């Protein structure tokens, strides 16, 4: 472990860490928005449910590296553009989250549905004020998985030149110098743990009732 290398490269490490966070978080937020819209449609129109499930499973089986590489061809971007990684990870996040969103939106019990309807909720308002809050625990379960997965997958992007902390891995391998590799590893793990803890706290704050149910 070369401590001197670390202290003389803190600026670069910090920059890569910032990139890593950016590359992981933007797809999570975008993927959540996509999953909420697609998931709400899948629940509202039950005929869409099976194709959505099939499509999301298919997306998830595509290896991340393959998706990163074909992205520029699909959306005609520069090969080194970070948008390739962001869009690819958005697809993964959305695919993973859409199942949780749909299961969550269907978790509202028949009695709750019937009483919401009978008290004069309109469908949109019921989705927003009743179904969505009740779906939150399942959505958060998906978010935690997707966030940790994203944080690890961002590193793969280093192979196409956009990888946040993953670039420390490629550097380390190419120069057979293991300090950057270790630094990248430790920071990735810490980042994943921190993000997960923050999500847990956010969920407790947003859904204080969820721990009481069953």
């Amino acid at each position, binding site marked *: 472990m070369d401590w001197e290398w670390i202290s003389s490269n803190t600026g670069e490490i910090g920059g890569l860490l910032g990139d890593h966070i950016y590359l992981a978080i933007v797809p999570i937020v975008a993927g959540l928005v996509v999953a909420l819209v697609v998931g709400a449609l899948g629940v509202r129109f039950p005929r869409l449910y099976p194709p959505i499930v099939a499509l999301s499973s298919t997306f998830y089986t595509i290896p991340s590296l393959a998706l990163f590489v074909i992205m520029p061809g699909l959306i005609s971007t520069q090969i080194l553009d970070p948008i390739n990684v962001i869009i690819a990870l958005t697809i993964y996040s959305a695919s993973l989250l859409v199942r949780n969103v749909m299961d969550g939106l269907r978790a509202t*019990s028949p*009695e*709750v549905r*019937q*009483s*919401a*309807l*009978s*008290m*004069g*909720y*309109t469908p949109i*308002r019921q989705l927003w004020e*009743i179904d969505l*809050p*009740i779906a*939150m625990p399942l959505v958060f379960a998906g978010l935690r998985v997707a966030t940790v997965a994203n944080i690890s997958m961002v590193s793969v992007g280093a192979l196409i030149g956009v990888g946040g902390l993953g670039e420390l891995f490629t550097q380390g391998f190419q120069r057979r110098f293991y300090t950057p590799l270790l630094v990248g590893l430790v920071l990735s793990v810490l980042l994943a743990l921190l993000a997960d803890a923050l999500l847990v706290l956010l969920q407790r704050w947003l*859904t*204080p*009732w*969820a721990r*009481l*149910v*069953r």
Partner: protein
Amino acid sequence: MIEFESVTKRYDDGTVAVDGLSLVAANGEITVLVGPSGCGKTTSLRMINRTIDVTSGTISVDGQDIASTDAVTLRRNIGYVIQHAGLFPHRTIVDNIATVPHLLGWDKKRSKGVALELMERVGLSTALATRYPAQLSGGQQQRVGVARALAADPPMLLMDEPFSAVDPVVRESLQDEFLRLQQELGKTIVFVTHDIDEAIKLGDQVAVMQVGGTLAQFAPPAELLSKPANDFVAGFIGRDRGYRGLSFVGAEGLPVHERSTVAVGASEDDVRQATGDDDHVLVLDTERHPVGWLPVNGQADISPERLLALGTTFTPAQTLRAALDGALASPTGEAVCVDGDGRFVGVVSHGEIAEHLQTAGRQAG
């Protein structure tokens, strides 16, 4: 007033849930729809607030055909209570109760004030206001369900088996409180149940429905018991019709009379003197509240261990059923009548109750 005029509900697959139903739920009364599962009672209820559409016929609320009203507005003007309460798990009790005010856009302070007031009204401590439904018992949740239905003070309530999911003891107290509340509020209520005893206890009018969605009989409970329209109704009402019918005859006309009593702490001589030839003497406390029966058997031993249980007493404001029950449970065959404060008024024997019934029956018939 809610009026059904030859209302039929036929589903796309051809199933007929409700078949030519005509009835009127009068203002300020509890109209109960009762019948076995599959008789269309819940479907009929849900057609009133248009959560199920009518296939043919019309339902009108206060003379207006509901088909010509806006469904959402209609629903916000009719309170709704469902089995298992159907509370929103993610909202606190006070927010659950304030649902319709919230939908109507009342300001928060007013909604909250109304919600807290209703909690007290339905017998819930306001300390529960910030709890979540999962923290309440089934009976408490059902009270919240009733409070929620009343929040915007709608003139009408629809109740779908609201007390079915709680244990019998809680159910009985919820029913009693519901009747007390209705006496204060005088809402127009349509109430669905599969439990004929509940229907008879709560209904001003009872509609007995049979499988296939037809109306078998629509009558006040007493008439249902005394004159069931057909074998289906008689069978559905079940045993003990005559005895249960006593619940609808007041006890005020019973020939209550004096009998020998002694005060607590009386001497053996007093007891012998008071009893005369009787086997038992009724013991009263200093306030003249009946305490129990003392068997005399020739020689009076008045040690407290020998006191027999009083059984149930009745007041003239109660029914013949309460009086007869008291007589049957008493060692002397006499029911003890007390006044509103529980003070001894007199006794009446089961023979006298039977005689009274016969006379009353002749007068009524």
